[in-house]
């Protein structure tokens, strides 16, 4: 197949070739480029952790959750105490294969209930909502000396978690009409004498090429539709394919919103069930896109900014709460288990009498993964990636040695 860049290369001859050859100077020498993959899935809006992973073994579960509780029989009982929501069916297999870890009753070190501040802390890796100027994934790229092609955000705009000093890319299906190669080759000529523009344009074309390989034409140009939640599944599949490539990105982010279920969140079916299904299908597509070899070197961390109230509210929904459930996936995990210190669901067990009590720090999960997956020392983690987080500790044994 002739790729968009090949085409332009052909059109413009030596000058264009020179610019594309020199455009990953670091790659030519990058014989130590890591083959470890890390994907962070941001579940924006505050996922109901007890809906995703029901503690059906807790004696207070049914009475506390009331209308929102799920019958034991419909749950995917991968564990004698916890069961996955039926919509997460594709994930049950991963769990059985040892490629999934659930961390119930986990939360950020944040006890307020603002989406924005909580997401900021989640993404900045800061102890305050606006405590830092760059996202922790961006600092990770710096720490592991990532090249320009190391990190890719899937979605419209660059998420805070990726922003910062290190060079990172983003990709989203275009919502504008196709422009045609004539125009693009002219653009390349007009940019030839401007270093910043020619380099960035060449990088952009390279990413477009990867998109050509990984995503079918309809999905690359899906206009409005590509902004629908369904796009998450497509993008997750594309992410898998890109991450599998030798020169492709090693670090990626994906985002899935729609978790802010104040009203009518549903149980077996309904709004939340649909979202869970998208999430599970996306993870499945990602694994499939990646193939076994890359998947075996991969950790996927799925995090939300906070959980929801333990009891239903007056609108058959749940309000902003504290602890939720964090999920890890990937062939690099020592998985197939729950990592938890279950706080219980009795009235006195609940945080402020209303929320699932957090017993595990989300940052300790992430730090544990980074420590074992990349061999980053605890000192470096607490200095560069999660400054001032010495107290949050770090969970060991999540990743295979």
């Amino acid at each position, binding site marked *: 197949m002739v790729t968009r860049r090949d085409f332009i290369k052909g059109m413009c001859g030596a000058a264009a070739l020179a610019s594309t050859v020199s455009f990953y100077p670091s790659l030519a020498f990058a014989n130590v480029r890591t083959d470890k993959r890390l994907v962070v899935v941001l579940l924006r809006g505050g996922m109901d952790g007890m809906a995703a992973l029901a503690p059906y073994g807790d004696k207070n579960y049914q009475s506390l959750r009331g209308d929102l509780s799920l019958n034991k029989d419909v749950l995917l009982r991968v564990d004698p105490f916890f069961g996955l929501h039926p919509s997460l069916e594709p994930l049950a297999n991963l769990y059985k294969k040892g490629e999934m870890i659930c961390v119930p009753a986990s939360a950020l070190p944040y006890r307020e209930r603002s*989406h924005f501040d909580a997401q900021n802390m989640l993404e900045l890796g800061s102890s305050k909502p606006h405590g830092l100027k760059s996202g922790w994934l961006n600092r990770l790229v710096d720490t592991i000396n990532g090249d320009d092609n190391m990190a890719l955000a899937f979605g419209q705009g660059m998420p*805070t978690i990726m922003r910062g000093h290190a060079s990172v890319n983003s990709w989203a299906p275009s919502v504008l*009409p196709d422009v045609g190669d004539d*125009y693009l080759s*002219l*653009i390349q000529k007009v940019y*030839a004498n401007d270093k910043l*523009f020619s380099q960035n*344009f060449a990088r952009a074309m390279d990413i477009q090429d990867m998109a050509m390989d990984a995503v079918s034409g309809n999905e690359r140009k899906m206009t409005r539709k590509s902004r629908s939640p369904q796009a998450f599944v497509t993008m997750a599949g594309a992410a898998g394919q890109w991450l599998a490539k030798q020169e492709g990105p090693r670090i990626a982010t994906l985002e899935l919103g729609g978790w802010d279920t104040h009203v009518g969140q549903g149980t077996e079916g309904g709004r939340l069930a649909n979202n869970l299904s998208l999430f599970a299908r996306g993870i499945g597509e990602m694994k499939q896109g990646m193939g076994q070899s890359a998947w075996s070197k991969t950790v996927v961390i799925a995090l939300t900014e906070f959980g929801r109230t333990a009891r239903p509210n007056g609108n058959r929904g749940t309000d902003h709460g504290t602890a939720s459930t964090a999920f890890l996936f990937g062939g690099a995990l020592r998985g197939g288990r729950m990592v938890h210190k279950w706080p219980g669901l009795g009235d006195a067990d609940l945080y402020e009498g209303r929320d699932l009590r957090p017993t595990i720090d989300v940052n300790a999960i992430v730090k544990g993964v980074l420590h074992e997956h990349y061999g980053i020392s605890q000192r470096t983690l607490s200095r560069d990636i999660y400054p001032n987080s010495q107290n949050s500790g770090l969970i060991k044994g999540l990743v295979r040695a």
Partner: protein
Amino acid sequence: MSYNPYVAAHRFGLGSGAEEIKIISKDPKSWLHNQVKSEIDTSLKGSFKNTQAITKQVIKIRRAKTKERKQLMKAGFDLYRHEMEMRFKQAVATNTPLIERLTMFWSNHFAVSLKGKPYLAALTGVYEREAIRPHVLGKFSDMLLSVVEHPAMLAYLDNVQSIGPNSIAGKRRGKGLNENLAREIMELHTLGVDEGYSQDDVIEFAKILTGWTVRPPKLFGGGGEFEFIERIHEPDKRVLLGKTYNQKGQDQGIAALNDLAKHPSTARFIATKLARHFISDDPPKSAIKKLERSFLNSGGDLRELTLTLINMPEVWEQQLPKIKTPYEMVVASFRAVNAPIKKVGFKKIAQSLALLDHLPFQAPSPQGWPDRADDWLSPNAMINRVEWCHAFAQVMRPKENPLELAQSVLSGVSSGDTLLWIERAPSPVDGLALLLASPQWQRR
């Protein structure tokens, strides 16, 4: 010293069409000087609701039940869209674009964003109209005070929730201090980050600012405006940056803000930001020094500061050091072809700005939008720009090759091969798209 019309039109202005660049070319410096004369009107033209009316509307959203809240939110966003449309139209049509640029600069410096607090959408437009615009050629200290007294800022940075622990209300309700506004004023609006203040200073300043809040709507009218409420205010004197503030009530805060406004660190911080915006991403130290001195000598007079900028050789030395932000790019494109907004419709324009990740008052944090090329030219952003220029050109449907337009609007700037390729473009649409996407037009 030669004054390049392109620098005047794009770095200080918002880009210009063929007619306007001719006028600018006659005397670029006077063209700028004339825009900062004292009789210049800096307001946004149109008829609008005032802060008090809109604040009452916003408070209603906060108090409404779910169903009603949805409708009120929608009404709030309709108002936001209307304000943004008027703002965009003025940016495209104005013959004092420097005023619009200064407005955007200062409103970004004192950023209020509806990200995270969408119910504030309706207040963002009036915030800029009433707290920023009147002062863009006035005193920095006056702008600072209007900003800190504005309901949009008080709500955005949570001061409306801040209660002095030893105030009458604090003792009764056991609620406490919120440091957000105090911290951001020092870090983002005045001194700059790490400029010699401590966490203790933040707390002291937060206590000083307790009581600065919004008057709740009253049953028989009134409410929705700024009010200093004594019973929320932390009593007693405070020590901020080594100085004791003995004043009672709101005077304590006014005194503290006035001192922050004229602090040498503030002068340096503002000078650096202005130089970064008007000279280059990494501006020369000499330029920062001059602006700093101008700020201190004039007591933070923003007209003086703007004149210092215009008169500074450093500004005119480099041709195209800056990248236009997406918003600037969209405005400049309309100005280039003198296109009426209604040819596209503001809905489409707003969609464009959303795609380009630069909707007004939706910055990701109180820090506002970034002001460096790196932040705006990621590969994906680049493709979006290139594709947007083409889509825009398609809507404009030029009938003939825009070479002549390109020759005039790019006059004054070395255009390399750009003109050559525009001439050879396979269609007038491609030609216009090429002009707008060219490094020359994308830069300023």
